[in-house]
């Protein structure tokens, strides 16, 4: 399109703005609805952050509680438990992110290679069904599968890989891998959908050209498919990095026990434990604020890195 034409178009747009607004009032109404939703459910609760800077007492409320500045935060970070909790959250978040992303991409590529629409559809449907299970069910299955008489131990024993049943939930070393595995099992199929969509959007002529140049299957994946979905991968990574500290709550809460509490507690569990159970709302809020702050910083950093490398980015 030439520049002139562009300008003309914008001219027309300006003139007809009100007309268009009228025409699109449905869309506008919907977006207003979502802006209100966002304000009510994402921004209004932020008033509660004030509790983090107060010695909050439910009786006095936010308006009359005593202000204590940053002392709650000081307490928080001088507590070795909390530092351990941050470590757990980060570690599990990063492991989950890497594992689920790689598995989802791998799965999407493999699925794409399957010939025959019907087979593909069936496999895809089956693979994303676990996404709809709630964690309580998934952890129940895990508990059964990994118990002393569960299928995993049964197999290990039958193949003489272990002398006696392994108690998977009693040792700290197994906890993070179990969590990562559960996440991969539950989310791989679901996460793969978006990559599959990206793959379908790749121009088929590229594959044809590659074939003419003598590329085999693996070459096509390497030189066409992966570069084709690279921007999708990066955008999703940036978005997910912001979620790293949301390493999970249910799964650790449900699978954890006294023996592994040193590696199983995440920030969310800590907030629940101290903020709600011990009714130390200020401490819980402070821990939550810290989590949000770190998430924002992580997103900014990732976005910046993407920008530097000339990749797609969020903003």
């Amino acid at each position, binding site marked *: 399109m030439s520049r002139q034409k562009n300008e003309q178009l914008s001219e027309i747009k300006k003139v007809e703005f009100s007309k268009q607004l009228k025409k699109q009032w449905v869309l506008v109404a919907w977006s207003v609805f979502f802006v209100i939703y966002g304000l009510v459910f994402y921004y209004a609760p932020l008033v509660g952050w004030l509790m983090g800077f107060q010695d909050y007492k*439910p009786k006095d409320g936010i308006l009359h509680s005593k202000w204590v500045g940053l002392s709650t935060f000081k307490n928080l970070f001088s507590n070795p438990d909390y530092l351990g909790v941050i470590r757990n959250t980060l570690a599990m978040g990063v492991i989950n992110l890497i594992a689920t992303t790689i598995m989802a991409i791998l799965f999407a590529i493999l699925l794409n290679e399957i010939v025959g629409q019907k087979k593909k559809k069936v496999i895809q449907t089956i693979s994303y069904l676990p996404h709809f299970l709630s964690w309580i069910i998934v952890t129940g299955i895990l508990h059964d599968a990994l118990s002393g008489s569960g299928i995993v131990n049964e197999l290990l024993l039958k193949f003489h890989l272990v002398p006696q049943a392994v108690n998977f939930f009693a040792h700290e070393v197994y906890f993070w891998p179990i969590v990562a595995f559960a996440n991969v099992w539950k989310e791989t199929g679901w996460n793969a959908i978006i990559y599959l969509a990206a793959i379908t959007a790749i121009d088929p002529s590229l594959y044809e050209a590659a074939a003419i140049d003598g590329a085999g299957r693996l070459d096509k994946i390497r030189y066409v498919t992966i570069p084709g979905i690279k921007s999708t991968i990066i955008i999703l990574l940036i978005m997910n990095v912001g979620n790293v500290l949301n390493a999970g709550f249910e799964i650790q809460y449900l699978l954890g*026990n*006294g023996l592994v509490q040193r590696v199983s507690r995440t920030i969310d569990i800590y907030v629940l434990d101290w903020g709600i*159970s*011990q009714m*130390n709302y200020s401490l819980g809020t402070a821990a939550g604020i810290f989590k949000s702050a770190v998430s924002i910083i992580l997103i900014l950093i990732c976005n910046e890195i993407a920008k530097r490398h000339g990749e797609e980015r969020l903003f």
Partner: protein
Amino acid sequence: MKKRVISMLLATLMVGGALAGCANNAGGGAGTSEDGSAAEGDGSVKEFTAFFAVPHAEINADNEIQQIIAEKTGVKVTETWLTGQQAEEAVGTLIAGGEYPDFVDAGDGSVQMYEAGALVALDDYLDKYPNIKEFFTEQEWDSLRQSDGKIYWIPQFSNIYGEERVCAHNDEAFWIQTRVLEEAGYPEVHTMDQYFDLIESYYEKHPTMEDGTPIIPYTILCEDWRYFCLENAPQFLDGYPNDGSVIVDTDTMKIVDYNTTDTAVKYFKKLNEEYKKGIVDKESFTQTYDEYIAKLSTGCVLGMIDQWWDFAYTAGDALKAAGLDKKGCQYVPLPITIEEGMKNQWHNSGGIVHTSSGLAITTSCKDVEGALQFVDDLLSQDIMNLRFWGVEGVDYNVGEDGMFSKTQEMRDNDADTAYKASHKCEYAYFPQWEGTSRDGKNAMKPEQQETEFFDGLSEDLKKCFEAYGAKTYVEMLGTTPPPGPWYPMYTFSQTMTTATPGGLANKNMDDCKHMYLPKVVMADDFDAAWKEYMDAYNACKPEDFLSEMQAELDRRVAEAAKYEN
């Protein structure tokens, strides 16, 4: 266009269906309560809501006895129980939300509810309700006063009317299946060594159940707050009663920490030995409560330490339903102490005022007087019978001498969860009497009616009791009066929060024990593991906790002395 018409049609059909469903429900509801027409007629049934911070079986919305009580008292309370949460979490969420049900029992969070200004002071009302007033003595009422000198909740349990009637040992004990005792010829068991010897030799001969299920000789429930099964045994083994959290040395009136006594070391060392031998279930420390109950319900667990209420109403009923009560799979308690010849206090007689929590009315309740009137009505003999015995002629029969009894069918119904949900309504967390009925003959509750209790026992249990010269669970252990007016101390430690150094220490000790006690039991080298545990334990500053407990003990003793004159 055609499509549109069809979808419109479908939509109308669905809405119609939904409406019809509602109408049907309403019709059904009225239909089931034929004799409830009077109450419904004048439409005066008040509805209240209640939340109890404990898990409990729910009853059906059209529960029959609830309906009868509603007719008699004009009140129906919809109860909500704890599901999938911890009590503290639920209470914390309630307070954070600021909206409450009419009635609440916040358990350990009661003091927090009071501090948040969520509860109604009951002082001005009590005198108007004779049944409530009668529920406690002046001294007991005074012990319920909070820091502002007012009463906010009514503890519901362990309150004895007239003569005490106890059959079940509703407390902690080392339990063992009757078949293990039977095979060994009902020997006297007084120590942990004897106890585990019995279990070991039975296990050696019978490694599986008849159907091939492997036997689990001994398991320990360790999930979350229920880890008391593992944690607090040293106090009993030393011959002290369940003060919870600490031992009170009655000679010196000093607080003793049972976590660090020699008895504790011996107890955990014994468990460690048994763990290495494969007698202690390898999954003890990772199993959930549900898994634990499932194990007990199959009858394959020979013994465990637990509170009666923690397994008897779930696994106990399941054993009966599966016919395992005829195979000696039911549990009896044993009077075990750390050494032979000590006095045991697994069972204490008398009522306890659980001052730390109870039924409270919240500031959200619009009709405090109506709510209290209902509590008052629930304590009348007529309604007490309905709540716990049921409907005369349906759930129990009355003999010519006025004694209540049940037929076998009625007893089977009592163990049937579906029947209980549709028929029985105990209002289980509202105040209730134990002991003897106001008629002076029957017990307030069927499980305390001696004749009824003994008749309802399985043959194996009867044989076992007879072999030990006992008629009830309690007689298996013997009974002791409560040690003193401070008892039990756990009603104080439960109210502690992390706002005080002692409360903080208590929370840290708790976290520490959750991790190290299982480690100690599973350790290859017990002594090294115990040392590591003790280092971590001492780092939690248990002395802060103990000194606050000592202060409370002194306060309670001084308080009680005021009433002696």
